[in-house]
């Protein structure tokens, strides 16, 4: 960084782009790739468990939900279909009650249903992961099973970093940049988007209340070209951010391993059920 301009090193910019890409890509080996597979395996599991109870059987789960071939919502005496995501949430929430009912008809299905809460990542209790330059922890938005199929991790650096972007540097004659400090880096995954987003927050204090205020965000459709511009925009903080992103990557791998372990179990269940379904078809 010099007085009358900025020197951008090919290598450093490349390193920063790679560090961002390793966190936010959805290719094989990334956390996002495992998350996508995990969510699909969960949704597959649901289709294997249906029908829950034999035809014409209807069992009230609570005032809102009814168990029949699928889990439906009870509204003014009528049963409405629920999207798969919601059905899984209900299965997780009322796992024991539903399993008790189903065990009368199919003990194997009941056993799997009892296992469902263990697939809910909000219950894993990995806690805070202490890393080299900061700590990583899971952030919950909604206190529902599977967190509405969102997965967010917050990296809090031990030392706050001055936030300066390239656009601020290059147009500094216009107005002096306001000094912001990076307080949180967030990994934000939602299963309907292809890639996760990365958010940068500063921590603001107002009336002794601390809150995170968003200062930069990549979108969930990042292409190669937009990733190039992200690395360029964040370039003035490259040295420190490369350290932070590497740290995040290390912490994220702990979650990735846990997802992979549970995914193995889900895939085993799905494979077993798939095999049983094929056998049944052959028998017919």
């Amino acid at each position: 960084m010099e007085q009358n301009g900025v020197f951008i090193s090919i290598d450093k910019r490349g390193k920063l782009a790679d560090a961002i890409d390793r966190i936010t890509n959805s290719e094989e080996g990334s956390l996002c790739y495992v998350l996508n597979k995990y969510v699909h395996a969960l949704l597959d599991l649901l289709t294997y468990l249906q029908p829950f109870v034999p035809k014409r059987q209807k069992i009230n789960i609570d005032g809102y939900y009814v168990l029949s071939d699928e889990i439906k919502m009870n509204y003014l005496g009528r049963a409405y279909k629920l999207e798969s995501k919601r059905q899984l949430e209900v299965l997780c929430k009322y796992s024991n009650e539903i399993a008790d009912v189903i065990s009368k008809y199919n003990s194997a299905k009941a056993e799997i249903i009892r296992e469902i809460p263990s697939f809910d990542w909000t219950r894993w209790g990995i806690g805070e992961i202490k890393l080299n330059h900061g700590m990583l922890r899971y952030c919950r938005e909604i206190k529902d099973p599977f967190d509405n199929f969102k997965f967010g991790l917050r990296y809090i650096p031990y030392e706050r970093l001055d936030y300066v972007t390239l656009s601020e540097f290059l147009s500094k004659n216009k107005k002096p940049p306001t000094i912001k400090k990076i307080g949180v880096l967030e990994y934000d995954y939602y299963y309907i988007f292809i890639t996760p987003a990365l958010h940068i927050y500063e921590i603001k204090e107002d009336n002794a209340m601390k809150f995170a205020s968003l200062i930069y965000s990549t979108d969930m459709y990042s292409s190669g070209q937009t990733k190039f511009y992200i690395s360029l925009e964040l370039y003035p903080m490259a040295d420190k951010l490369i350290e932070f992103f590497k740290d995040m990557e290390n912490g994220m791998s702990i979650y990735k391993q846990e997802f992979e372990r549970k995914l193995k179990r889900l895939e085993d269940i799905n494979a077993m059920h798939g095999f049983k379904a094929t056998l049944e078809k052959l028998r017919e």
Partner: protein
Amino acid sequence: MEQNGIFISYDKRKELANAIQRIVIEQYISIHELLEKYINALLNLPELLYPLLPKNKKVPLSTHYILSDRIRSVHIDNGVTYEITSEEEYRVLYSYNDEIANAVEKYNSAKAKIIREIPSFDWCEWNDDVIKLNYGELKYHTFSNNGFADVNVMMDYIPYERSQCALLSEFLGKCINEYEPKEISRVRYHYDHRHSSPALYIYGIRKNSSETRDSEIYSAGRFYNDWKIYEVSLELYPMADELIKIFKDMENGLNEYKKKFERSMKRLEDINTVHEFKETVGKFKK
């Protein structure tokens, strides 16, 4: 440009951004405003020429059009005549200019003279016009050869001397070794009256190549705000020195086209004023 990176100067980046801003926002807005006025002045003109022929006089122009008090379309089955829009009237005035002027001349030579002048107000007449500038020439293309078609024109700036064509993302990207050196062959400015901003393209051709066909290297799109101009100026930064000259030159070239429109508009306004004056005198006489 250095071996292992690039130095981006505040001033040069800013100068490039300003040059882009001038042609894609300021120059575009002023051309747009001028053309609005020009088209309005054009649309007023037929009103002043009415009636083209005295009452009950009719001259067929084609199987579709007939000249009477104004130009009307003829229904092919029953011969009923219909009024047409000013835009269509212009197209007919343009296509049958001599026939209409000859017919009108018998009754009003002043009107006939104006009708003969109408094709000179058509921007499509400038197709393939070239304006020589300091570092290159600006060539004007229209998409249609029909008179008074929508103002949808391209202006290609072709530099006299080619210079290196490199984008920042290519320079800083990993694939730099695979990058084939190219030179700027032209910069295209696409003006379309239906849009609120122009499209800007940069074309390149392989260095030391005998190829005559160039290809699009960069497109800045049609939507501009401060952030977009910043991004464009950054991406085009490795060519900043050359592009600042080109965009300034283009600005001068665009001014020349503006002057052409202004000259034609001046003539249109003069015609309108003379006619209004004559009308007022005629009313007083009555």
